């Protein structure tokens, strides 16, 4: 049993069986698969496993040490919780893509070399895109496409960095990198896009709120935290990260205050929380790195809990804007309770998980004498309470009565939220077990009288600010609107660019690329389609009907992709470039 497969593969290959199961068996299987992953991870011991020799190059699928294990545990645990939350989902492809995405994240954090890391990195990008598309709305398809393009760009930066790095050092082992030259900068930026560094962050609040009620919970857990892991592995103590992280904690909370879509509010606060982790990596002391890992662990739980509670609201009411909600506590009391636990945890209320993890990073900044950073982190702590701690539960469940009286969330959703809420409080009350899995020995006591009273004051007086602003009517009213972010540059900016260069680009597009595309893609596709048609008509039984449904779904998505817009076609070109680079990379390794 021990070490028989890389942990990622249980979810990735296991998910492929989902379409063949029905009813109760399928539900049991959906819970069993992540449960098996959790059990398997806890049975693993430190070491290097699953080396695969290709040519004279070694792929390492399992670098198991304290840093990767801590992330592995929480990734597996959250997959289990969200799987329970997703039991009502009928769409098989949605679940498969979500499981492959979670498996990809496990693969990435256990990867010991750059090639394995890159492969799982790309698996995550593509499967996450499908998770976004699963909402099957036009908005989701467009946002997913933008998500994919941003992440393909990030993947190219990473790949370019890896190639230059290999040429310079002759090694592809993924260890400490540090910002030295071009290679390291490219890798850094590739990681940074997934970590939602400021300016590069817009994909996150753009895409995450558009997925399904369950898809968004999956998304909230993996991409940014995998990026946190690789930054902690490759760039600990990089001073620049302190400033990047501090900006990340501060700017999103301004957006969160004026944002109307509550899942988008949570997306901005996600960036704010990842900012704490990035700052911790930048400080680079044992305390701060422990804080980063602990905070990632707790954050995944309470952020998922918050997204699950908002998902339950969306599932029951079909609405997610603050302007449309309010007063739901009357008919959804348990969801309200779980949401409040999540809100308390993200705010760092004593006896919840956020209190015992976030404070390690803030203390590390203070011990390092970084006054400005410390002030920024404190501001962010107060601010996150303001928008995630108060605004989310207040506008969804209290505030003005919307008149909506939806049913309480389904039982499996309540179980999943209950599990997450239980863990948030358990970690807050007994931080010992969490501290024991951190990378370095922990010599930190969160529950000192002064720390408890300071944090309580910070939160209580932030709540006072909210109360006073509400009572005086100064608090900005919720307005149906959207708020521009840096995605404007590729949403509106590219359109201007396309109009500007329409004549030149169009000619190249139609005369050269169009023809090449016709020969290289469309004709073979047609042939394959004909072949499939023959196959399909030859055996019209249940199995083929199932397959046909699946391929229809895919072709529907393909149809959506064929929008006729130049920048969508550019994406296909990028895919081509990636495969070209891949081929080059392989020949270059030989």
């Amino acid at each position, binding site marked *: 049993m021990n070490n028989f497969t890389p942990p990622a593969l249980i979810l990735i290959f296991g998910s492929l069986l989902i379409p063949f199961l029905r009813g109760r068996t399928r539900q049991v299987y959906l819970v069993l698969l992540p449960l098996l992953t959790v059990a398997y991870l806890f049975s693993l011991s430190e070491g290097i496993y699953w080396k695969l020799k290709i040519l004279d190059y070694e792929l390492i699928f399992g670098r198991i040490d304290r840093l990767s294990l801590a992330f592995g545990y929480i990734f597996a645990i959250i997959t289990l919780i969200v799987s329970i939350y997703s039991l009502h989902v009928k769409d098989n492809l949605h679940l498969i893509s979500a499981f492959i995405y979670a498996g990809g994240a496990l693969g990435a954090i256990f990867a010991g070399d750059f090639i394995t890391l890159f492969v799982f990195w790309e698996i995550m990008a593509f499967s996450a895109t499908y998770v976004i598309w699963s909402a099957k709305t036009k908005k989701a398809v467009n946002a997913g496409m933008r998500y994919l393009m941003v992440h393909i760009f990030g993947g190219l930066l990473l790949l370019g960095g890896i190639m230059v790095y290999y040429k310079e050092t002759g090694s592809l082992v993924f260890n400490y990198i540090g910002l030295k030259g071009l290679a390291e900068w490219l890798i850094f930026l590739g990681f940074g896009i997934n970590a939602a560094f400021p300016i590069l962050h817009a994909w996150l609040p753009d895409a995450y709120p558009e997925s399904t009620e369950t898809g968004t919970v999956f998304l909230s857990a993996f991409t940014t935290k995998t990026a946190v892991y690789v930054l902690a592995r490759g760039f600990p103590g990089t001073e620049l990260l302190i400033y990047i992280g501090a900006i990340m904690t501060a700017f999103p909370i301004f957006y969160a205050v*004026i944002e109307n879509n509550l899942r988008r509010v949570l997306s901005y606060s996600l960036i704010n929380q990842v900012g704490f982790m990035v700052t911790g990596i930048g400080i680079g002391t044992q305390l701060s790195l422990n804080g980063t890992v602990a905070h990632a662990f707790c954050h995944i739980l309470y952020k998922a809990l918050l997204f699950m509670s908002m998902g339950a609201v969306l599932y029951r009411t079909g609405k997610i804007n603050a302007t449309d909600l309010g007063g739901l506590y009357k008919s959804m009391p348990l969801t309200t309770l779980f949401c409040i636990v999540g809100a308390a945890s993200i705010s760092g209320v004593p006896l919840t998980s956020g209190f015992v993890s976030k404070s390690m990073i803030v203390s590390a900044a*203070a011990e390092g004498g970084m006054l400005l950073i410390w002030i920024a982190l404190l501001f962010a702590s*107060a601010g996150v309470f303001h928008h995630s701690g108060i605004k989310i539960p207040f506008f969804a469940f209290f505030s003005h009565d919307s008149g909506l009286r939806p049913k309480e969330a389904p039982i499996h959703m309540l179980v999943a939220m209950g599990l997450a809420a239980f863990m948030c409080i358990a970690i807050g009350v007994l931080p010992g077990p969490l501290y024991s899995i951190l990378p370095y020995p922990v010599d930190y006591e969160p529950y000192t009288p*002064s720390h408890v009273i300071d944090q309580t004051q910070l939160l209580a007086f*932030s709540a*006072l600010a909210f109360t006073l602003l509400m009572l005086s009517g*100064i608090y900005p009213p919720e307005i149906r609107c959207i*708020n521009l972010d840096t995605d404007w540059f590729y949403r509106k900016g590219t359109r201007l660019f396309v109009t500007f260069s329409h004549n030149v680009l169009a000619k190249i597009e139609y005369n050269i690329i169009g023809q090449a595309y016709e020969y290289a893609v469309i004709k073979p596709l047609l042939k394959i389609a004909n072949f499939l048609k023959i196959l399909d008509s030859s055996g019209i039984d249940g199995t083929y009907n199932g397959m046909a449904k699946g391929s229809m779904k895919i072709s529907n998505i393909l149809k959506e992709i064929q929008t006729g817009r130049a920048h969508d076609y550019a994406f296909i070109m990028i895919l081509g470039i990636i495969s070209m680079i891949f081929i080059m990379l392989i020949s270059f390794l030989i």
Partner: protein
Amino acid sequence: MSSKKMDKGLKRILTIFYIFLLVLIVIDLFIHKHDFFGFDGYPSFYGAYGLVACILLVLVAKYVLRPLVMRREDYYNE
């Protein structure tokens, strides 16, 4: 009638909340602080900071950020 009752309930909650804040300020006086920068050891520094920070946050978001970035919901034509 019911709205009056609500107001009464809200008033009671607010009164309890204000008393809680006062208690926090009083307790704070008796707790030994380990300060890092000097000023963070002052009594109720954290409370004062939280209050000011959040009011500034909301004012800046409302009067600076919103006029800059707010657009109609169909701005991107989707």
